[in-house]
């Protein structure tokens, strides 16, 4: 069965069971591999994407729930040559170790910063409550998100990257 999905601004027709979790379609059909498969139970956050700007766990959301919705993955935020603030900040502060959780961390942070570019540490911790990291880079992740918020505030008038 064909399902229409709007991912990163482009409408894709995907031939899949409507009950398929979004993550599988992103990775296997659309070859967007930033979102990771971690637990498959919506508990680790490595599969995080944005749906209409809200951080959403793609491993537990079936594609049939997402018709007409704006799905945003990390790939659309920036490129290697022209990284988005959240990506630049993670690079600048070297906030990744193994890196597996980082795309999910970035997407949770992106959803937060789009609402509030100057969050308190408590607000960052709350927003990333369900993003797990086993390497222990949490303090650098917090710093990177604060830095990304500053960068986003600085470039806000141009509104360069509306997620």
């Amino acid at each position, binding site marked *: 069965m064909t399902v229409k999905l709007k991912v990163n601004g482009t409408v894709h027709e995907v031939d899949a069971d*409507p*009950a*398929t*979790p979004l993550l599988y379609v992103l990775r296997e059909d659309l070859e967007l591999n930033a979102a990771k498969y971690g637990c*498959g*139970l*919506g*508990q680790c956050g490595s599969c995080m994407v944005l*749906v*209409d700007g*809200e*951080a*959403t*766990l793609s491993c*537990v*959301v*079936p594609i*049939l*729930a*997402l018709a007409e919705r704006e799905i945003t993955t990390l790939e659309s935020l920036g490129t290697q040559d022209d990284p988005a603030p959240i990506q630049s900040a993670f690079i600048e502060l070297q906030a990744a170790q193994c890196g597996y959780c980082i795309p999910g961390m970035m997407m949770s942070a992106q959803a937060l910063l789009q609402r509030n570019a100057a969050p308190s540490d*408590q607000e960052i911790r*709350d927003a990333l*409550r*369900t993003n797990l990291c086993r390497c222990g880079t949490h303090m650098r992740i917090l710093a990177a998100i604060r830095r990304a918020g500053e960068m986003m505030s600085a470039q806000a008038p141009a509104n360069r990257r509306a997620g």
Partner: protein
Amino acid sequence: MRIRFLALIAVALAGAAGAFALVWRPAMPAQAEAQSFDPALIAKGRELAAVGNCIACHTVPGGEAFAGGLAIPTPFGTIHSTNITPDRETGIGVWSLAAFTRSMREGVDRAGNHLYPAFPYDHYRLVSHADNEALYAYLMTRTPVRQDALPNDLVFPLGFRPLIAGWKLLFLEPAGFMPDPAKSDEWNRGAYLAEGLGHCGGCHTPRNGLGAQIADQHFDGGEAEGWHAYAINANSPAPIPWDRDALAFYLRHGWHEVHGVSRGPMAEVTGNLGGLPDSDIEAIAVYVADVMGEPSPERRQQAERLREEVGGPERTGGDADTLAVPPDVAGMPGAALYAAACATCHESGRPLPYGGLDFRLSTAVNADNPQNIVTVTLFGLPPADGEASSVMPGFAGALDDRQVADVLAYMRARFSSGTAWPDVAEMTRRTRSGEHKVVVRPSDGIERAPLNVGVEVGP
């Protein structure tokens, strides 16, 4: 004529004197500084404060413990909890033990003002003098926090505190716990804790139009911070009836294999009870199980069937496709959503508290009021900070109101024999928007200020 006039004046004066006697309470003298307390008494007070769940109302999420200021929505407007740290100016630092005891038993502050019954003195009146002494010792040895109480925002004319005296005249029973000599000591201990400091009825008993608990509907189900507090009497909607052992396990651990995990305000209650001795937990369980009563033979049979079904081979399949679902239910619009979003955890066969509950056992799915399952579907179960806990992702970002209603309609049809819930989409809209205020917190313990991960709304 003249005599009649004098008589009228006399009656009016007597009336005024009566009203004055009813309403007026004296201020109590300020307590001198530098009290010291026996550490054993403080430790006992800590346990009792956990039973009373004092921290839940007297702490703003993320703020200083016991410093007050939490906005408590009531049908009569918003009440802000007060600072019960021993700060001498903004807290209860100048309260004597006598003033503290009077507040617990009569709902009057040190200065003589009547307190609103959001402070559950209709229960705390049962607390013994010895226990009040321990609670006092515990609270007076907390860190003082300077934080003024916020003004309440109540509908006219309830801002006028002397009216509370009238409420007390109607609804407040005399202080002191009267044991039932026909029952065991354990039962009486449980009744003392559950009806007194534990104030179970504060949430689990419905209230009348004046906000007082309806005496003849004891434990028949009520509301707490936007959650439905299930009936915990003979009308309990649990698919498998509670018994003493299940209650004790649940109160001790915050979950039970055939009932699920505690959540919402109850998660704080079970989190706090963690510090209590087993004997007190057992006593509460004995008392509440007795209030629930023996299930009818029919209900017991149903429960036995359900136990076999749930423990049977159907459960071990771990795949939604292997379960027998009637075709009319399988064809419902929520079926595919359920299979992808819910079944991965809830049919995984992974044991509680980390796996999802089999919905055939779910009180939320079997209750007539769907508020709690709407809330959990939207906001999930937030993990506790720094300790292992159950966790469920919220689906507010992924599912719209119609989709939530569809998936819940499917679950109701498939896992409950109850009739379909009306207007779930509208309830979902109101819960999502904050029009219906609901507080969703992790199940942290007593010293940690809880966070609300539900929708943030103004006071």
